[in-house]
């Protein structure tokens, strides 16, 4: 492979990723622009009775979830800083990251609903308590589920940034100095670690906020209905049979995207103005503030237990046809739902096939790019990848739908493949870029100086040393593909069905065992991929 790579010109190395990923992506976003010039769509939008209340709900759930997730991650990191539990925390967070949002939302819903396990545990009685939890009108259950699900993402991003900052043990040494100057562990974390960490959390936070404010699948399961969040209003409009309603959906997507962009820009600007005013607090003098270890352990444990309980409950429900209210354990177990699932497993196979293919192709495209392009050109590609994640999925997928409709790609497998590749390649590029470019090329020179052929050196030295990030990128790509709902539903155009589509449809119906079985099928493969990646990627010398 290395010899083939070396024979490729930079143009040949760049072409595949540009043709398969970058161009369709850019064209999709551009396809949104014609929606600006559709007066009918804007007239419908203005007279839509739920527009403003839905927009406020979207911003509140997305914003609230981001703030909550940030607070929880800061608390956990500050409390467990330099503790021996950090590797375990990292492994748990990776598992939480792999868990698809939708599967967690379904399990979480079963957990908190008035007839759910939590009500049975703390309320009991003969009838379910009058709780308003799932689909509550304020979007609180959606917000809480989002915050819990984004906690692992922020933890992973923060731990990666801290490991980068501590590459040579620098941050550890800085902590020592700060302690010798009279600062307690909590003060050291707030004054020395956090200020150096926050800049690298900027993009992850933007991604978390935009995702939360525009998520469709989770909002369909847990979010309010009268009015729903704006993403759900848009979703129904995009799936409407009437083309002018579709146009209104795209116009609403533009509104939502612009409002989010303005909000992010304003927040960043406000922080730029206010943060310098807090500087005097950095050097106000030594403080013996201790690390919030107890609170960190409690927060982490509750978050972890809720995620674990959601998954275990899915497993239990999938084999429980009837489970009358106050009983803590199901009266009988049958595998009827799994039999049903087995006889209609096409969505499962399609999802697995798409996930495996997009992960492998994205990995190949990324390696091809990194091997043939100078590092300076990464900026454009990484910028595009970040934009993919920071843009509402509705915007990218909505534009992609219009583009693919014109190209005759809707309702086709190639169309579905390209639609899944868009977010997968973005994640793979972002994860691989840092480790791949940080690779010390002198290892390759050393190998070549020992008369080892280029291909052997590439496989046995470079790829071997980069095994962990390469496998992680593939596993995340796989998980991201498995979880795609919006682009899958739009591009499939009713001709194909994937797991998330089945799970969303089922969750609106009353068949709990089958819903739980499909949600579990959605959760298991990404978790298995992560487990495999972390086992295979373990360095040999540890």
């Amino acid at each position, binding site marked *: 492979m290395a010899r083939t790579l070396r024979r490729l010109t930079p143009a040949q190395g760049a072409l595949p990723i540009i043709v398969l990923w970058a161009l369709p992506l850019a064209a999709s976003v551009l396809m949104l622009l014609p929606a600006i010039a559709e007066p009918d769509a804007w007239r419908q939008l203005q007279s839509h009775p739920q527009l403003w209340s839905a927009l406020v709900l979207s911003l509140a759930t997305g914003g609230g979830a981001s703030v909550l997730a940030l607070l929880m991650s800061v608390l956990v990191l500050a409390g467990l800083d330099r503790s021996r539990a950090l590797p375990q925390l990292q492994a748990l967070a990776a598992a939480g990251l792999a868990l698809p949002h939708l599967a967690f939302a379904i399990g979480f819903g079963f957990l908190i609903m008035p007839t759910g396990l939590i009500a049975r545990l703390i309320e009991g009685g003969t009838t379910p308590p009058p709780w308003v939890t799932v689909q509550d009108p304020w979007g609180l259950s959606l917000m809480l589920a989002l915050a819990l699900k984004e906690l692992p993402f922020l933890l992973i991003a923060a731990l990666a940034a801290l490991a980068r900052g501590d590459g040579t043990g620098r941050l550890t040494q800085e902590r020592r100095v700060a302690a010798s100057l*009279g600062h307690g562990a909590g003060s050291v974390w707030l004054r020395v670690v956090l200020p150096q960490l926050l800049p690298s959390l900027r993009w992850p936070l933007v991604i978390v906020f935009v995702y939360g404010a525009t998520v469709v699948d989770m909002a369909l399961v847990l979010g309010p209905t009268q009015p729903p969040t704006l993403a759900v209003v848009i979703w129904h409009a995009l799936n409407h049979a009437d083309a002018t309603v579709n146009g209104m959906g795209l116009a609403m997507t533009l509104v939502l995207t612009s409002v989010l962009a303005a909000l992010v820009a304003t927040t960043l600007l406000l922080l730029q103005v206010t943060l310098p005013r807090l500087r005097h607090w950095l050097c106000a003098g030594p403080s013996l503030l201790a690390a919030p270890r107890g609170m960190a352990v409690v927060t982490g444990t509750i978050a972890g237990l809720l995620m674990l309980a959601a998954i275990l409950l899915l497993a239990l429900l999938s084999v429980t046809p009837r489970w009358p209210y106050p009983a803590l354990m199901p009266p009988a177990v049958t595998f009827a739902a799994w039999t049903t699932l087995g006889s209609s497993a096409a969505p499962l196979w399609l999802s697995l096939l798409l996930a495996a293919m997009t992960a492998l192709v994205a990995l190949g495209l990324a390696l091809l790019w990194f091997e043939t392009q100078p590092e300076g050109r990464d900026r454009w590609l990484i910028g595009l990848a970040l934009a993919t994640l920071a843009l509402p999925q509705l915007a990218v997928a909505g534009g992609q739908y219009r583009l693919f409709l014109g190209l005759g790609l809707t309702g086709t497998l190639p169309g579905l493949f390209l639609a899944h590749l868009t977010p997968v390649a973005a994640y793979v590029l972002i994860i691989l870029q840092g480790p791949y470019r940080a690779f010390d090329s002198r290892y390759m020179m050393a190998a070549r100086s020992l008369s080892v052929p280029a291909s052997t050196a590439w496989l046995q030295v470079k790829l071997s040393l980069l095994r962990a990030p390469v496998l992680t990128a593939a596993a995340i790509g796989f998980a991201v593909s498995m979880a795609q709902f919006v682009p899958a539903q739009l591009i499939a155009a009713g001709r194909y069905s994937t797991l998330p589509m089945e799970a969303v449809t089922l969750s609106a119906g009353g068949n709990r065992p089958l819903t739980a079985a499909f949600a579990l099928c959605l959760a298991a493969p990404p978790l298995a991929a992560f487990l495999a990646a972390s086992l295979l990627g373990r360095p040999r010398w540890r």
Partner: protein
Amino acid sequence: MALSLEEVSIRLDGHTLIKPFTMRLEKGVIVTLMGPSGSGKSTLLSFIAGDLTAPFNATGAVTLDGRNLDGLPPEKRRIGRLFQDDLLFPHMSVAENLLFGMPRGQQQARHAAMTAALAEAGLAGFAERPPHTLSGGQRARVALLRSLLASPGAMLLDEPFNKLDADLRAGLRDFVFRHIAARDIPCLMVTHDRADVPPGGRLLLLGRGEVRDA
């Protein structure tokens, strides 16, 4: 003020790195400890400072000015440290670095002390600069000032001149020794460069697990 070590010994995974020894460091005196790498010099400093981590462990008592430091976390020991790297916090200006460890109190007084320290060190006008814009020698001097402005009861120097160019070392040694002497506190320095030993200073050698006078 004096720093006392009594029957201090250090072990690594069960085998003895430094055999029990006792010594007393008087105020205003710099004691130098030399030994090959891996002999446990820096580990001893970590033990005195209170941040020894596994797989190392240590026994023995450390007292500073009669106060037993056993079990106290590093931030409560009032022991300043200098490392090979200056370790100035990159997100703070020179002034903020200096104020970081200075005891709390009236803001004007703290600023005046900081400005005076910079001026005395020939660094007037550098207060608002980010650390990375200073030369290596300047950063090393700021790092020492930062430690001393925290009013430590003792100083530990861990090969502080190791990473500096040879032509800067002599000047910085003189600067460091002068400032520590002026504070009148005990100081323990580890190094593997005999030229680092202050003129007329006490020199200890660490070899085969034993600490003895040179």
